[in-house]
Every structure is written in C-alpha cells, then in structure tokens.
C-alpha cells in the first residue's frame, strides 16, 4: 500500500534549506550574468525559461518521490497540487489557483510572495525582462514529464508594479505515453 500523500508544509519542514538571501542573490547573479552575456532582454527571458525547463524535467522526479502524490484525475487537480504542494515544497511560499476558463484547460497560479525578487528593482533598460521566468520554465518542464504540454505566461508581475505574481497556465494537449519498443520485439 502506497504511503499517504504528504502536504507541502510537511515536506518543506524536512528538507535542507539555505539562507534566503544567499538564494536570492545567487539567482540575481545568474540573471545579471545572463543580461551581460546575451545583451538582449528577450534572449534572457528565453534562456531563463530554458534553464527552468531543464530544472523542471529533473525536479518532477524529486517532487513525486517526496510528496507521494498519486495520479491527478484532471488538470484542475494538477494545478492545485502545483500551487499547494509544489511551490510550498521548493520555494516555501503558497500559491493559489483561480480564474478557470469553462473548459478547465486554462487557469492562473497567483503568488503573493516570491523570494526570488527580494531587493530587485527593474531599471529602465530592463523593462521587458521577466525576472522570474525561470519559474514558468520549471512548471512547464515538470508538466511535460507527466505528459502535459502546457504554455505558461506571466500575466502580472510585482516588479512591473502589479500587486501579485500571476502565472497563466494553458493546457495545450495531453501527450499519450509512447513506448519506444513494440510488444513482439
């Protein structure tokens, strides 16, 4: 019998943690370096998303192993799990899910608090920058590993003067699992 699912709080209490400032400044240094290397803000957004994707496709395994979560029945449950367990487990913040469309394929994950952006203020030269684009990449990568193709965009960003962070999740399609071999081989 599988162990019962654990809550985000319970997992968060048991994992090793680093100092929040160290974490924030390390992420800041990465973004800073990307801005220097790539020069174009759009390229930086892309690169952050790609980095997040690479994290996400690995992180999902850790997430499933630690949380004991069983298969979600629909996308609604998936979104709830990401917001309540995923964000809590890895970032220590709780997100909420809202703004569902009637088909149940698009929703918003809203972050009131975000440890990545402490101290940060966007200068005029970086106005197009999605500073936390790594997060959208992580979610996209993780969902892709559990056969969901999604498109994720930032709708609200505190660094641009909004009151919260809002990630728009759009389920593009469920990819059926494919086996790389045939039964009779």
């Amino acid at each position, binding site marked *: 019998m599988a162990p019962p699912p654990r809550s985000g709080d319970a997992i968060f209490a048991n994992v090793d943690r680093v100092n929040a400032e160290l974490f924030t400044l390390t992420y800041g*240094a990465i973004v*800073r370096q990307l801005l220097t290397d790539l020069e174009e803000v759009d390229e930086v957004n892309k690169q952050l998303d790609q980095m997040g994707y690479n994290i996400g496709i690995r992180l999902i395994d850790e997430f499933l192993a630690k949380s004991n979560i069983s298969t979600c029945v629909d996308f609604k449950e998936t979104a709830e799990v990401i917001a309540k367990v995923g964000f809590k487990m890895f970032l220590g913040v709780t997100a909420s899910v809202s703004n569902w469309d009637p088909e149940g394929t698009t929703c918003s994950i809203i972050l009131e608090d975000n440890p990545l952006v402490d*101290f940060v203020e966007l200068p005029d030269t970086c106005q197009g920058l999605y500073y936390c684009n790594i997060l959208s990449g992580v979610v996209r990568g993780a969902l892709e590993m559990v056969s969901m193709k999604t498109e994720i965009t930032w709708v609200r960003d505190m660094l641009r003067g909004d009151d919260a962070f809002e990630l728009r999740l759009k389920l593009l399609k469920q990819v059926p699992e494919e086996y790389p071999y045939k039964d009779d081989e």
Partner: protein
Amino acid sequence: MTSTACFMIVSRNDIPIYEAEVGAAPKKEEAVHQHQFILHAALDIVQDIAWTTSAMFLKSIDRFNDLVVSVYVTAAIHTRLMLLHDSRNDDGIKSFFQEVHELYIKSLLNPLYLPGSRIKSSHFDTKVRALARKYL
C-alpha cells in the same frame, strides 16, 4: 527643515552616483554648481580624516561661508555620503545618514544594479527626499 542642503553619494572612484538638492530654498542654477564644487573640494579632506578615525560619521569637516560639509563614509567599499548643510542639527544629520546608508545597501543588493554606477531608481530618490524632510 533647513533652507539649503545638497546631498551627494560619491563612489569609490570619486564619481558622484547620486545627487539631490534637498533644501527648502528655491533652486538656483549657479547654486547647484557651487554646491557640487564645495563638495568636490571636500573630498581630499575626507580622504585624510577617514583613515584617522573608526567613526563612519564625520561631522563638519569643511565649511564655506555659512555652509558646512558633513560626511558619512561607508565601511565596505569606501562610498561617501556627503551632505552640505547650513543647520547645526547633528543628531538629525546622523540619523539621516544612517537611514540613507540602509537604503543604499538595499539598492546595492539589487542584482540589476551595477555597483559604482549611477543610482537612477525613482524609488530611492523619493525615499531620500522623504528622509531629508524628516531629519534635516
């Protein structure tokens, strides 16, 4: 509030990275230049005094007519917060420096700000002017 005060942050390389006229007196073009000039002249004195004391707040190190220069030298990378003022309110000036120092540290922690470059943040500017109204 004092009638004349000019606040400036000077980086390690003697480049001004932030300037603000925070006095209540109406602004005059030539006065601004004069203030910059006086503060610039005081830099040498700061350099001499800074190494003789462990205090960060150096009060009234230089004067020009009725204007006095007070300086706060930050420990880490030798940035100088300089204030030209005509009041004698030392406690207020010290508090002002301490709080601006805190603001400056916050802006240094911003990963998108390059240390030693000009501080363009309007948030920082607003805060400094508010502190000036409160303490000077």
